[in-house]
């Protein structure tokens, strides 16, 4: 694709872009602050794409490239599901499906002091937030939100976790609620935690519901919204 610097980035928004595409020409835009998310890079006066995917824009000024992978590239501000691998003096080593293990400081819990360090055994599933993620460094995590509250972060008990692609996670987290979850939620009662790194955790009162929800989500990943609804209905019929 030829580089087409444009003043109106909307021509590229929601379009497939490839590494090397120039999507913005800063010299043509005056006095605007633009926030760049993952997959974009500033090269002097132009913004060029580094990762293949869809270009996304959110008001007022944030741009990023979105693609669906099985591997996760940590970026700050994401909520992910991690698995504890090891516990060191200062932090826990947590696997978040990225290129390296992430560090979760021992004190990064609400009301955490040296005296009440939580004890996580190997294999504990945690819902955490990525605080810092720079290339080449181990990402840093936290079990608190930006204001210091616990806010649902922490270990997840029971239930069942499965791994899928990052695209699926984003679909599940989109608003309005994605059709699969909506249709499932109408009939079944379950709890779900979605990590942007492709991990999804489901819990419900009985194992059959959990299995149903998990398999439905996995199977309907590649279907269109209408198809998803139909497929979910049929799967639920079968389980009855």
């Amino acid at each position, binding site marked *: 694709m030829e580089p087409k610097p444009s003043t109106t980035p909307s021509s590229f928004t929601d379009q497939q872009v490839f590494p090397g595409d120039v999507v913005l020409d800063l010299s043509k835009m005056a006095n605007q602050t633009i926030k760049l998310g993952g997959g974009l890079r500033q090269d002097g006066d132009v913004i060029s794409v580094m990762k293949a995917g869809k270009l996304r824009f959110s008001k007022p000024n944030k741009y990023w490239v979105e693609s669906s992978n099985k591997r996760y590239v940590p970026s700050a501000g994401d909520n992910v599901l991690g*698995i504890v691998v090891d516990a060191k003096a200062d932090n826990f080593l947590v696997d978040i499906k990225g290129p390296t293990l992430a560090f979760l400081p021992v004190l990064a819990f609400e009301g955490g002091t040296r005296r009440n360090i939580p004890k996580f055994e190997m294999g504990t599933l945690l819902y955490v937030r990525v605080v810092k993620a720079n290339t080449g460094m181990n990402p840093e995590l936290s079990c608190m939100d930006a204001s210091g509250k616990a806010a649902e972060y922490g270990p997840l*008990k029971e239930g069942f976790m499965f791994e899928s692609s990052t695209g699926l996670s984003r679909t599940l987290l989109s608003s309005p609620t994605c059709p699969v979850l909506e249709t499932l939620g109408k009939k079944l009662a379950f709890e779900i935690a979605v990590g942007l790194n492709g991990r999804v955790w489901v819990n419900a009162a009985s194992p059959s519901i959990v299995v149903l929800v998990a398999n439905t989500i996995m199977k309907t990943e590649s279907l269109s919204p209408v198809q998803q609804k139909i497929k979910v209905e049929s799967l639920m019929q079968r389980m009855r």
Partner: protein
Amino acid sequence: MEQRLGSTWRMTVNEKKFIETALLSDLRTDGRGPFDYRNLTIQFGSEDGSSEVQLGQTRVMGFVTSQLVQPYRDRPNEGSLAIFTEFSPMADPSFEVGRPGEFAVELGRIVDRGLRESRAVDTESLCVVAGKWVWSIRIDLHILDNGGNLVDAANIAALAALLTFRRPECTLGGEDGQEVTIHPPDVREPLPLIVHHLPIAVTFAFIGNESTVVIDPSHFEEAVMGGKLTATLNTNGDVCAIQKAGGEGVMQSVIMQCLRIASVKAADITDKIKKAVGLDGGVVEVAHERYESGLWTLILKNGGVWLLILLTNWSSKEAFCSFTLLHLLEKLRNKTFVLVGKAAWKGVNNLSKEMEKPKMKTEDRSINQDDMEIEIHSSKKDGSSLGDNKPKAFTGGPSSWDPYSKGVNVDELKASLASRAVVTPKEEMDTSPPLKPATDESLKDADPAPSSQETAGTTEHTNEAKTLKDAVKPKHKRKKKKNLHHLFETLLETRLSRCCNVNLLCSLELAIVACN
């Protein structure tokens, strides 16, 4: 080191508990019951002897090759079978390139034991010159994707590859009969291996403390299980091998139950394999049809088997009963058979419509005559023993050669081996005089017939030797793309007895199409 840690798959505490709890209510994470297998698909590559098996997420590829080598000292007249496994790192992050790990060796051993100890593959037929040259069969198993239960998938891949493998034919020559000439495939049809039975591996996983047993464990379940048991059985009810390496102890009653379940599953899987390879007498396809100067040529296809039928003076095709045909094809499957002479099949009027249902190539078929003679390639030079007024059998393998029927007649086997894969038995197919499509009767008649043929078969072998030698015409008859017409005429005129593997007919079909 951290890099590697980052890419391995990890198990959470939650999953372990969940899998165990779910199993208490007989539910598995992918919705299966405890004794359900995942979807099994078997596909074949373009070469003989290559197969790819998909069991759920698990994918294994099998590849069979052969080579002439010197035999082992203590077994001078047996060929050898060797299994090599390759665990590609793309299958699982824990697989590494280079030397096979412990699990890889174990998998290789299980498959090897199932095939070798149970004598599933006949190694004596692989001998060319006793003490000097034998065929060595090498099976390579490549693991492409590890979704759990590699042993079963690898076993199926090995079996499927063995069943479709063809080794080159070789003859002895030279002054002292010690020189071996290997014939390339376009000169002489390659031969299939003799596989007596199919040993199927069935794996059980023991999860949790109450010894809950599940069959065909998935990746999750394998990580959680306390112990594993693999039982290799065949459809005859023989236990070929059992492997239980370490892990939790289980009660004897549990093991017996597992074996019972395994025998049921083995039957299922054997059916699937046979269907995939084309040995089940399923759909009969008419691959090609042609009418020329009073001669009808039909190439029929049943799975992997091709059959050439030359018909003269036949009535409408309805008379050719599908049952009959399937039954005959069953016998002919993967066997070499010899052209003999005319076998008259009079009195059958209507070929069944089965012939028309499957896809047919063009050709005009509006011939209606009363008499039908099927020129069948059978192995008797003199048609006398065939009788005149009885519809004759396709002579192909004797039904006792069918490795999938109960047991193999050992004497028959030895005799036929001695004559180097020439098979001659005939069946008498009795269709009742009324001009009706052959019914099940004929089928039943044909079945008991084999036993009477055995003796007939053996006596013929001595004749065979002679007829073959002077009958085997030089290679020009076998070339593909030879003028088909010419070929047919020669066949008709001279009534050649030739060794003609069924697969040769593939090439004839090409010729037919080419001539068209």
